[in-house]
């Protein structure tokens, strides 16, 4: 059976959920060989093995943290060469983060392959893996293939279930020679994002978002209280972010995060096309807006026309009461 390279997104050895989803998709097209780089790379092996990795190629070097993107491309290329030398390689799969897409794209240029970004599903096909994508703010669904070289495909979070599928997951050290460009862009300092204790926005099963209607940074506590009652992540529209009410890292939409949770609750958000681009594929959509004409109501499974300052606290109290 052909092998599939899976690029592992992890933080000091803790594998992030989208990588486990990627393993589910990888098993549909071949045998997953994981590539984990940087501090803690070897510690990823156990959980990757549990989810289907037959092998885990690891490498650590200061370059991965000290320079932008290129060292990781060098390493992924080394993995590509090692695996394709030993047999057939069906695809290279990478999680669709900003960095993941850049790594995948540069690899694709180097190996002369086409690239598909932001797939939301993947199946085996007669002419190689077939990727499903959504286009034009999710108003179209497309199916595409890479027609030249080994398919390089990046996949969005929440595109597949995490499934247990125990495999060997044998750790092998990957030899990496860094290219001349590896040290081109230096990371001179890094400020980690402070944890809020809430789920990661792109990975959360429920997202509760607030927009201009929230009308002030201090009022976001209403949105946070609802989120916490549901164990949800908090999102914001660009209007709320631009006003300085909530951090940009929580922005949902075309130039923020793209989310696809089981449930999306929009409060005081009108539903502009750029916002819809980041949430339209959510399974169930709920909105609270005082304007019955707001375009967000075209998307909803359930909508409440009303003042969010009345509706949201009542909803939070009711959820807490029902949860006891």
């Amino acid at each position, binding site marked *: 059976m052909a092998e599939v390279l899976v690029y592992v997104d992890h933080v000091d050895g803790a594998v992030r959920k989208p990588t486990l989803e990627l393993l589910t998709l990888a098993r549909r097209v071949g045998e997953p060989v994981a590539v984990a780089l940087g501090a803690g790379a070897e510690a990823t092996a156990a959980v990757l093995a549990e989810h289907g990795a037959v092998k885990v190629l690891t490498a650590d070097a200061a370059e991965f943290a000290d320079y932008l993107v290129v060292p990781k491309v060098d390493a992924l290329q080394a993995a590509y060469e090692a695996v394709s030398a030993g047999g057939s390689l069906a695809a290279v799969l990478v999680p669709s983060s900003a960095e993941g897409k*850049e790594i995948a794209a540069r690899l694709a*240029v180097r190996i002369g392959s086409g690239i598909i970004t932001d797939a939301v599903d993947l199946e085996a096909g007669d002419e190689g893996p077939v990727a499903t994508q959504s286009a034009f703010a999710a108003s179209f669904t497309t199916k*595409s293939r890479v027609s030249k070289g080994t398919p390089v495909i990046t996949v969005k979070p929440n595109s597949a279930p995490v499934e247990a599928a125990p495999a060997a997951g044998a750790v092998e050290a990957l030899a990496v020679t860094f290219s001349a460009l590896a040290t081109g862009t230096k990371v001179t300092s890094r400020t980690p994002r402070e944890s809020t204790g809430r789920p990661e926005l792109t990975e959360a099963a429920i997202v509760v978002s607030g927009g201009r209607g929230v009308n002030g940074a201090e009022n976001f506590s209403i949105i946070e209280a609802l989120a916490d009652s549901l164990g949800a992540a908090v999102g914001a529209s660009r209007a709320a972010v631009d006003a300085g009410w909530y951090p940009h890292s929580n922005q949902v939409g075309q130039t923020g995060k793209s989310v696809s949770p089981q449930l999306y609750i929009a409060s005081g958000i009108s539903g502009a096309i750029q916002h819809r681009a980041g949430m339209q594929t959510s399974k169930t959509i709920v909105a609270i807006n005082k304007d019955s004409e707001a375009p967000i109501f075209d998307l909803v499974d359930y909508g409440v026309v009303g003042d969010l300052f009345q509706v*949201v606290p009542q909803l939070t109290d009711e959820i807490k009461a029902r949860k006891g």
Partner: protein
Amino acid sequence: MSLRIVVCVKYVPDATGDRHFADDLTVDRDDVDGLLSELDEYAVEQALQISEESDDDVEITVLTVGPEDAKDALRKALSMGADKAVHVEDDDLHGTDVMGTSLVLAKAIEKAGYDLVITGMASTDGTMGVLPAILAERLGVPQVTLLSEVNVADGKVTGRRDGDAASEQLEASLPAVVSVTDQSGEARYPSFKGIMAAKKKPVESWDLSDLDVDSDEVGLENAWTAVDSATPRPARTAGTIVKDEGEGGKQLAEFLAGQKFI
């Protein structure tokens, strides 16, 4: 000292219009109004700011690969304040994907001459956000991408990249490829004077032969990817909409409980 900046701008279908695919499954650019991708206005803006803050002699060239109408995008960038424009246009380019477009752009950037390339964070139609990284790879220069803050001084570019897990300060020597986000600062509106001045600014047209690109490296037939189908998303079944008469929060909770979210 002189600093040559090339800004890559894309002409895209208006996102607020009815965007769709043509019969050959390429983006329909004929039936929908087009404009300079809003996210590339931020790239033009940063180029202008770098120019205004620099002691060097800065020349800003805006570059697009696209059909005849793509000239509108160049014109807008010129009226914002760029100095000159290059339009790469060739019938053989129809249906080219990111691998081919990046090849053509890289050749055009080299032909124009550059110290700094600035792009938007992503095009608003394809929304891949990978072209800047690919350009850096093809040109063999540092990639300094997704910056929300950019500075150019002493032959170096520095800036802030806000990533998922951390905010990073980056530094690279010129020449380099930079992409900027919509957090980098609002783009200016063209002034009346700027619009008038733009009419006199030079716009060069290049085709594939000017760039030594073979027609078998571009176009739909030679693309590195193939779209097999494009289906409009089925209309969402109309949801339930209630007016809050004092019980809206409770009614919503009832709905969520029915869906097993509570």
